[in-house]
């Protein structure tokens, strides 16, 4: 970015600032708020004001920290879902589709990386900082590249909206220790482990909130559609899952029921005017996955 050197200066200044003891938080908060307002950034001033305890935990998690959290969660996803399926051509194909969708997503400045999990269940997961997983079982259920693109678009949506970070930020564990940074993680490895285990439990066992899933469903078709994939492929895919499993025992155990999701996706396609381009690329999908699933 063009402002890198300026940004470096700021960070340097803030590091200096944070080397002192963190007393007088309220005073600092007031100063920050006034400074923001004084320089015409009313929005930032309001956010600082609303932040309550400005220092540490309640501030958003930065990308550097996000990567640490993403890696730790990714380790656990891989450990619990059969390890990464070692098929270089398939991995490359999934990354090409995923990165094509990510190219024009709402958070295109970070790296997205995709891996296939050697697991028969039908599942997909997104850890912070763009660590995205699909199971072999999910790929077996998919019929064409457009379906894969919308599924990956859904997972990319979790990352662009920072859904997991939001959960971590809201957790009492973090609020209690007031810090979630890397220094904190290194000095309090047990507390960091609790934070990560809590997020993993939410991601793999309990599932994210319904509203987060539906938001990702909407974004999934929008992102895939921007690249030119036919968004109705996602409707076909969700409908297939509903037929296989029905609405009662959610097949994606971590997701809301399919009928609900289908109606949200259909209204998104309608309201956003997403084009049914007919680009499904079934041949490329079967060629690329042929014999490996």
């Amino acid at each position, binding site marked *: 970015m063009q402002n890198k050197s300026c940004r470096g200066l700021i960070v340097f200044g803030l590091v200096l600032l944070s080397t002192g003891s963190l007393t007088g938080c309220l005073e600092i908060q007031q100063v920050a708020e006034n*400074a923001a307002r004084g320089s015409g950034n009313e929005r930032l001033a309001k956010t600082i004001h609303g932040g309550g305890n400005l220092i540490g935990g309640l501030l958003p998690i930065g*990308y550097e920290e996000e990567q640490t959290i993403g890696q730790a969660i990714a380790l656990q996803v891989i450990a619990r879902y059969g390890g990464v399926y070692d098929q270089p051509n398939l991995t490359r194909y999934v990354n090409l589709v995923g990165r094509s969708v990510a190219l024009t997503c709402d958070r295109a400045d970070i790296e997205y990386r995709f891996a296939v999990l050697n697991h028969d269940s039908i599942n997909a997961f997104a850890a912070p900082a763009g660590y995205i997983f699909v199971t072999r079982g999910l790929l077996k259920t998919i019929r064409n590249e457009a379906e894969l693109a919308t599924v990956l678009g859904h997972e990319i949506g979790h990352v662009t909206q920072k859904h997991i970070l939001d959960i971590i930020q809201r957790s009492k564990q973090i609020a209690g220790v007031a810090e979630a940074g890397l220094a904190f993680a290194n000095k309090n490895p047990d507390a960091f482990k609790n934070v990560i285990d809590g997020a993993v439990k939410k991601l793999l066992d309990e599932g994210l909130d319904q509203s987060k899933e539906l938001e990702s469903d909407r974004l999934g078709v929008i992102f895939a559609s921007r690249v030119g994939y036919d968004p109705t492929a996602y409707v076909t895919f969700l409908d297939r899952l509903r037929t296989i499993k029905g609405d009662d025992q959610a097949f994606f155990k971590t997701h809301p029921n399919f009928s609900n999701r289908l109606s949200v996706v259909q209204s998104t396609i309608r309201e956003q005017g997403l084009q049914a381009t007919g680009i499904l690329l079934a041949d490329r999908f079967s060629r690329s996955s042929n014999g490996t699933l």
Partner: protein
Amino acid sequence: MNHRCALLAMMVSFVTALTMTDTAFGETVYVAAKTAQMRSGKTSLDPVVASLKLGETLEVVKRDNRWLQVQTTKGVTGWIYSSNVSASKPAGGDNELAALGRSFRRTDASSVTASAGARGLDKASEGYANRSGITQQQRDAVDRMTAYKISDEEIQAFLKSGRLGEYAE
């Protein structure tokens, strides 16, 4: 106002200055793709005249269906595919609050070893792996994921062969 408060006030002003929106005349759009090509004409067969980066400011000269004729701040004019631009400036990197928060939290600069695309788990996730019985094989898998590279050219070739993005008919 003590020293640290004064510094903080300075910081906030800096951050604010950085995030001020550019003043513009006419219609302004921003590159919304990680990388995007500007072409001499409004088809993907026309030669590339410039490679544009995420967040770059462009002035719209005219629109034609799914293509926009635009001018860069350096005065280069060409065509760009509409999916590659957006009317609002894409949020790049951390927002100002995240930057503030990160810096407050970073009391031990030596603990930071992670960087995008760098090989190796960072110290904190390595520590997590040690405490969670994560095998070497599983660590290597995340390591490979982190380092996995695909060039922009490969992605463009992939889009092209699928007639996706600006390569649509």
